[in-house]
């Protein structure tokens, strides 16, 4: 009996330790290709240095849907419950939503698995942009849940840097006085 109790304690200790170890690991999500976009008239990908950039043509107030794969490199299934509001939105984009397979607002990525994810961004702001600036959207912060109780915010870098730019001179039908430098 005594030996059984000791064994049980050891097993519990091992399980607890493993659980703590797993819980202590941050959720590990990685974005990767293939990628695609919709909601813009034109898009192209190029590489400069170690940067891979997807240029999209600005469409004022249009919604860009950027789709890529998200892989779970961790040991627990991760449920993505939504976007975490960023401290600062990109200059010409506003992050709207994230969706999983079949447009699910909440979806789970099993350990070692990948799922297609679509981030929706509204193109906006050219009417208030001065100079010939461009803008990048490089990633999102995701609200996640693991094992029902572990809640985290995970930074996910896009496989490509989304870029749109120079709307002042390109195409900004809604531009106003503030699209010129102030003065």
């Amino acid at each position, binding site marked *: 009996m005594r030996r059984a109790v000791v064994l049980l304690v050891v097993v519990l200790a091992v399980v607890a330790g493993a659980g703590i170890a797993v819980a202590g690991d941050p959720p590990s999500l990685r974005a990767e290709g293939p990628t695609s976009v919709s909601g813009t008239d034109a898009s192209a*990908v190029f590489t400069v240095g*170690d940067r891979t950039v997807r240029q999209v043509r600005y469409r004022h107030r249009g919604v860009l849907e950027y789709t890529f794969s998200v892989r779970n490199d961790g040991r627990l299934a991760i449920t993505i419950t939504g976007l975490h509001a960023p401290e600062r939105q990109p200059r010409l984009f506003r992050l709207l939503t994230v969706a999983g397979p079949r447009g699910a607002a909440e979806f789970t990525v099993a350990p070692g698995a990948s799922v297609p994810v679509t981030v929706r961004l509204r193109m906006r702001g050219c009417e208030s942009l001065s*100079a010939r*600036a461009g*803008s990048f959207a490089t990633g999102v912060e995701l609200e996640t849940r693991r094992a029902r109780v572990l809640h985290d915010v995970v930074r996910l870098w896009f496989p490509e840097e989304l870029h749109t730019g120079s709307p002042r001179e390109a195409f900004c*039908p809604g531009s106003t006085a503030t699209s010129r430098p102030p*003065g």
Partner: protein
Amino acid sequence: MHGRASLVLAAILGGLVAVTGVAGPASAHEERPAAFPDGTGHRPTYLGLDNPRHRVVCKRDSDDRIARMKAGPLKRRNTRLLAECHYRSIQTAINSVRRRNTSVYVLPGDYAERRWATQRRSSYCSHLETASDDPLPASEYIGSLTDPDSGAQESDPIALSYPDQRRCSHNLNLIAIIGDRTPRNDSMHCDSRLCGLQLVGTGARQRAVVIDNRFAKLNAIRADRAGGVYFRNFTVQQAEFNALYVLETDGFVIDRVTTRGNDEYGILAFASDHGLIQHTNDYFNGDSGIYPGSGSDLNADNPDFAPTRYAIEIRHNRSHHNTLGYSGTAGNSIHAHHNEFYDNSTGIATDSLFPGHPGLPQDHARWDHNQIHSNNQNYYARYVDTGICDRPMKDRGYLHGTVCPVIPAPVGTGLLIAGGNFDSTDHNWIYDNWRYGTMQFWVPAPLRDEYDPTKLYDTSNHNHSFANRMGLAPDGRVRHNGLDFWWDDQGVGNCWQDNVSSRGEPTDNFVIDPGPCAGGGSQFLPGMPVKDAGFLSCSQYDRGDPTWRHPPGCEWFDSPSRPAATGGTSDLPLELSAATPAAPATPGGADIGAGAVTGALGVLTLAGVTLGAGRLGRRAG
């Protein structure tokens, strides 16, 4: 021309690029969509101060000013002209012209053109957004000076159709010379009484006649489809966009004109041909002193390095204390020689970065026998970071040296080719530019809204740089550049040959020797990484937004330190210099004679760039 190489590259790198797209909207440089003249015009000649067809403009104090002139023929001529003066306003005199090739003689004085600066608009001109008889397509509508959210009932577009520009010529312009009187036919030729107009200051110096816009209108002077126009011997200043603006004009001369204190450009020539800009003095401009953008694209299909002819010649000018001394998005077929570009943030820049410019990508410019030196002014640190550029435009001190950069420029660079082709940089003195003597890099076509996959690599090809004196002043003084030549190793047919340097051999960052010009220059090397020149990060610069005045990863606005004789070909930061006194708290604190000011400590390493592989002392060819 560029297509063959691009097709090969696109085929090789098919997996690298995924492109979708259709033809994009075509808009111009914050302007109606512009087109090139047909090139049948010609450069006008100066008709002197005794053109029998003339008008005379003077101010109340012109007689006093003439009385103070040095005795001689010019004073006698001014005295005679004074007796003929019937106009107090330049625009009124222009409006009175009845025959072509008329000279408007402007006697010494300050001209604010108050009548036109404050003229009440017609109802039509106040409601162009909704009431125009000749509206631009909605997709080409650009801007409004009146914020619709303000509740104002008027609309004030920045881009007007040509008919509306003619009909409402003072919506945006203090002085307007609108030459095409038949706007609804297909021709943009000048066909009015204003063709061949000459606007001539009669004083002994350019400052004797000052046309002061005082930021009343977007442009101080606009010459629109005004073939044969000739500007000579005056100063024009304080415009939000351009002091002197030439658009869709075939045949023009800007001669002995000073442009200064403008939020953006001193001289801007756009979609024009048969032009000459000479003996001008251009300073304190937030974009550039001289901008020959979208020059007539005469050599667009020319596969040879030598151009068939140039559209605009720029000679014997001084452009200094601007963000850029010279700039030209789509600055095609431009010949700039025997100029001095100094004490700017960047001396010369041409590019294919910004969409909406006819004639992209840029090609066939030549810069020779220029002095390009001491371009180290950090106006970002001095005036943007200190909040001076947040003040109302009139209060920034533009006439006293304040420069508020509109665009991002690599401080400390002599000449920058951002996506150009068939450009020649030769026989120049390029010295004392603390970052780079010259800088050349590839600009991916999508950045200019060109999504044709065969054109992805259609920039930074066939540029030659030869017989330049790097780090050496004409008088023999040694003034090192930070690095003589910076190149991202991209493009075919580029070469650097027979250049001499203050360090013996020119310094560069080239990973691969591009080879001699006669051997065809650089070759395409699959897998060769593209060095990051920094333009992607820096393109987010927005002077009006405090959070984007220093975009993450952008090092262009760091002041480089004075270079040492050993050069900058190291992957280590250059030795930091002691910072000079802090930026002035009041506008206009620039000491234009003081040379470059390092407002902040800087490092010269660029993200993603390993200069260690570069070699000191290359002489190609």
